[in-house]
């Protein structure tokens, strides 16, 4: 009986919800209406636009991978263990969700930059991260990680530990439980978290600009290209924004499709 309400939602609530939805949808429509469709193809296929789109897709894919590698264990640690300070840790880990990305970029620069906290050690090791494509991936991972951790932690809590307990009594050691029971069961949660992370990474702007710079083909992702295009060619900026919106809609829609298909 979960799902839609047997009792109905009052009409006035739906009316207010409609106004709220319009508030989000009309601006998107406004962008679509502003696009110079005759030029659209040409605008989004210039060298720099193509380079930016390609870089965005590559770095977003890489940072999604990083989010999975680190975020899945983090979600398990938050959902499946309890320790002192867990609440504080969760607040800290989720912070990039609400931090202005520019501040996030400054923080990354202070950490991995040449004069940063870890930068000097890294420089001595011959690793120079700042202003490379790696830096873009780091910036995107920083802002996208909480999306995966948050949604997967929720999925893990909802799934509960009953199957894991059964697996343990059947002789499965913790790593086996993780691999053969927990992960397959929350796979839809991982997929939808990953897709959200991908979308967030794709839209990342402030932290990338501050931490990675804006070098065509190296660090200038699509949002940076849009920002730069505004300077000279507003039409191109709008056209590229629309490309970004389209990819994001696709990706968020996909996330919810996967989520809906979750067992039970």
């Amino acid at each position: 009986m979960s799902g839609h309400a047997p009792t109905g939602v009052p009409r006035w609530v739906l009316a207010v919800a409609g106004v709220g939805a319009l508030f989000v949808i009309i601006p998107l429509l406004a962008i679509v209406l502003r696009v110079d469709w005759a030029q659209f193809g040409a605008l989004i296929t210039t060298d720099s636009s193509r380079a930016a789109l390609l870089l965005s897709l590559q770095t977003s894919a890489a940072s999604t991978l990083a989010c999975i590698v680190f975020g899945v264990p983090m979600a398990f640690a938050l959902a499946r263990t309890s320790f002192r300070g867990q609440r504080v840790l969760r607040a800290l880990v989720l912070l990039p969700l609400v931090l202005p990305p520019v501040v996030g970029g400054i923080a990354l620069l202070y950490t991995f930059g040449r004069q940063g906290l870890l930068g000097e050690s890294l420089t001595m090791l011959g690793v120079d991260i700042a202003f490379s494509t790696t830096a873009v991936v780091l910036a995107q991972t920083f802002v996208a990680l909480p999306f995966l951790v948050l949604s997967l932690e929720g999925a893990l809590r909802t799934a509960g530990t009953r199957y894991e307990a059964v697996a343990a009594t059947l002789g499965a050691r913790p790593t086996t439980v993780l691999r053969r029971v927990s992960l397959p069961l929350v796979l839809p949660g991982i997929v939808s978290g990953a897709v959200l992370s991908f979308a967030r990474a794709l839209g990342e702007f402030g932290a990338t600009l501050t931490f990675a710079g804006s070098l065509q083909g190296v660090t200038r992702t699509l949002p940076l290209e849009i920002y730069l295009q505004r300077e000279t060619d507003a039409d191109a900026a709008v056209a590229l924004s629309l490309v970004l919106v389209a990819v994001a809609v696709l990706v968020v829609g996909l996330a919810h499709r996967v989520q809906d298909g979750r067992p039970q």
Partner: protein
Amino acid sequence: SEDNSTTAAEGLSGTVTVFAAASLKDTFTAIADEFEDRNPNATVQLSFAGSSDLVTQITAGAPADVFASANTANMDKLTDAGLVAGAPVDFATNTLMIAVPAGNPAGITGLVDLADPALDVVVCAPQVPCGSATVTVEEASGTDIPAVSEESSVTDVLGKVTSGQADAGLVYVTDVAAAGDAVEGIEFEESAEAVNVYPISAVEGGNQELAEAFIDLVTGAEGQEILTQAGFAKP
């Protein structure tokens, strides 16, 4: 630069990374093309952002060979940080202009008109180069502009004007030129009081040879020609 089979006679080889103020996007893109035409084995990497962003990045270790700033203050910051190789050269100047939406709906003719509190005028914040220039012309003309917004970059001022949100904005001549049909520019004589100087310099630790070659092109006839066409004046 990978292509070592070509001879040195065909020019320089390698990659030169140029950090330039965002307002130089079009001109420096054109100059970079010219540079690559002259040196088929060389590649120019361009990074555009606000001048102070660029200084922060170079200070933090960004791999820049050349830095072109939109004002002397930011070049001074880099000099203070000991990251300027040689002496900075001024290569262009820019002056303020009133930008109004196409058709000039508010009928603005000069700086004094901007004092009308009924108008929505947008300027740069005093903290950024275009804003300090704005303060200078206000003082010079004795006009007090009741701005509805003090933006942190000239791009944002222009954006408000092109979208018709503001009745007028104070931007650079070059911005008006770049914005095309969307805006109209209105000159005013007090603009001469605040000439914005663009210095360029090689960066310490970068590829000096390529940097010098690029700077030469910018300050040379061909570079100056491109800059002039975009509305920049000579220093």
